[in-house]
């Protein structure tokens, strides 16, 4: 077990800087998740921690040791790849034991550790199969097993579930959470699925264009986003963003901060009421019934569209004029630069 500390980490590919100064501490035993839009540098950052990619500048410490120039295999990290990256010419047993074999661990010791990992991951019956004979979920488990066998101090996952179908993804997500509970090893997990991030993380790191936008617990990010980007990135469906003036109507008791130019309110926090003068009036344009909840699209007098999520079965039909309100605690104000103000 070990903590991971990044100090002003940067990465250049040729002339372009992809990671532009990241400071980050992942505590021992913590489950940290990197999220961010495609191309923001999540994988690159993870690969720098793993040692697959050189650090252009900055300091990388794992377990108190400076790792900038240490080989990937000697950093005590195990990695699970998005494509699983199982060796197609080796069976499950040899795939999992390959790293130990390269490190010249004696056969019986290797065997014991492979069997242990296989038992943990319920792979016992599959040890003699080849990767092509496994289902997606089983391959994923072997890939995790391969990382476990090396007993790393830190696990790194790069979008490990993105090749699985929705149902299996939910299942494997809970298995990974259970694994973390059992092993209590530091884990860093990359995803662009924010549900995965919210459910798994002790700490979420939101990245954009090679910079950290915010670091915090899932709840922090949901309730107290630092800026418009985080506010809209975390939470699904995304937060509605309206001109600050509308805040008065949504929640009349709220005092408007001086520098606020926009107000954010999550679809699930908007309530539908009779249209009155002290509610935000809107017209229903579309209802999307999903079973548990209905997504109602509405249009405001100013022409903006806005989304409301409600668990009521019967939403007002299309064309109805309605009023919208929300509790003042659920309003988020942002200044002209998109920073949160209160």
């Amino acid at each position: 077990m070990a903590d991971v500390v990044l100090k002003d980490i940067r990465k250049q590919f040729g002339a372009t800087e992809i990671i532009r100064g990241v400071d980050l501490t992942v505590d021992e035993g913590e489950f940290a998740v990197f999220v961010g839009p495609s191309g923001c540098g999540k994988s690159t950052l993870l690969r720098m921690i793993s040692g697959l990619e050189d650090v252009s500048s900055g300091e990388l410490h794992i377990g108190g040791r400076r790792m900038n120039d240490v080989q990937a295999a000697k950093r005590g990290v195990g990695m699970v790849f998005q494509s699983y990256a199982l060796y197609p010419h080796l069976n499950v047993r040899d795939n999992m034991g390959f790293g130990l074999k390269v490190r010249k661990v004696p056969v019986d010791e290797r065997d014991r550790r492979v069997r242990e990992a296989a038992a943990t991951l319920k792979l016992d019956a599959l040890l003699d199969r080849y990767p092509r004979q496994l289902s997606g979920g089983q391959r994923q488990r072997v890939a995790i097993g391969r990382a476990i066998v090396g007993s790393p101090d830190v696990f790194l996952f790069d979008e490990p579930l993105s090749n699985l179908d929705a149902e299996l993804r939910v299942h494997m997500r809970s298995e990974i959470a259970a694994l973390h509970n059992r092993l209590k090893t530091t884990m860093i997990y990359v995803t662009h699925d924010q549900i995965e991030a919210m459910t798994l993380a002790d700490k979420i790191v939101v990245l954009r264009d090679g910079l950290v936008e915010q670091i915090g617990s899932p709840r922090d990010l949901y309730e107290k986003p630092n800026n418009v980007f985080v506010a809209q990135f975390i939470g699904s469906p995304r937060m509605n963003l309206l001109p600050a003036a509308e805040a008065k109507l949504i929640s009349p008791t709220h005092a408007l901060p001086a520098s606020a130019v926009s107000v954010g309110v999550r679809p699930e926090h908007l309530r539908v009421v009779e249209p009155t003068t002290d509610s935000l009036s809107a017209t229903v344009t579309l209802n999307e019934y999903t079973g548990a909840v209905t997504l109602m699209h509405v249009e405001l007098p100013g022409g903006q569209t806005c989304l409301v999520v409600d668990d009521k079965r019967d939403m007002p039909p299309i064309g109805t004029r309605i009023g919208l309100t929300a509790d003042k605690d659920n309003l988020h104000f942002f200044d002209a630069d998109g920073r949160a103000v209160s």
Partner: protein
Amino acid sequence: MTRRQIDIIYRTCWTLALLIVAIPFVFPFLWMVSAGFKSTTEIFGTPSLLPRVWRYENFIEVFTYQPFARQYFNSLYIAIAVTVLTLIISSLAGYALARMRFAGAGLLMLFLVSALMVPEEVTIIPNFFLIRSLGLIDTHWPLILLPTFGPHGVMATFLMRQYFLALPRELEDAGRMDGLSRIGIWWRIALPMSRPALAAVAIITFLFSWNLFLEPLIFLSSLEMFTLPLALSNFNDSYGLPLWNLQLAATTLAVLPILIVYLIAQRQITESFALSGVKG
């Protein structure tokens, strides 16, 4: 007619059509084998597919007329040496060109590929002077070194490079995480995954060396050093006229290994030609 009957008729027609198309390809081969058992007079007498008198002694004379066993062995060991060397070099160089970033890699590739466009006949004279200055005339060295490091080796390297380029990078990353060095990744991940490409290179290289004629003709002079293609052109009577029956008997023996390999690895070979984009 039932569905089944139509099916049978359909298939019979197809088979017949294919048989007819195959005749021009199979006939010369059968003619060669049969002529190998005839006497010279019979070859030039009334044509017949089967010999009237089977002269099995042709196949013994082949070995007494010149050191044919020795020549056979020469061809075999040279082809094996060329194949093994080419496999090692083309897979190493191909891997480097596919995966290692070094200054001038692109230029080097261009340089190599342009070598493919120079016909062998153009380089044979400079090569002759080179080999002579090294004192390797009438040895097997040029027959091993020229195919390995010449255009054929370049083609093999190119083939391997293209195959390595298509291998998933994450597998090599996984290898690095498992503690493999560059060379370890090449040996324990890239090579085992490239068996189809290696087989293709092995087969076309073996055939290339086995069929080589110009180089042996230029570089070899003593009978004991001859390779098969050269030996085959050497079954002549005292007037320099070909002893057709011996020559064709010897040719039959010469195509034997290729025939055997082909029967064993039929599918592999078809695939390898498709992969290499090269004619047989």
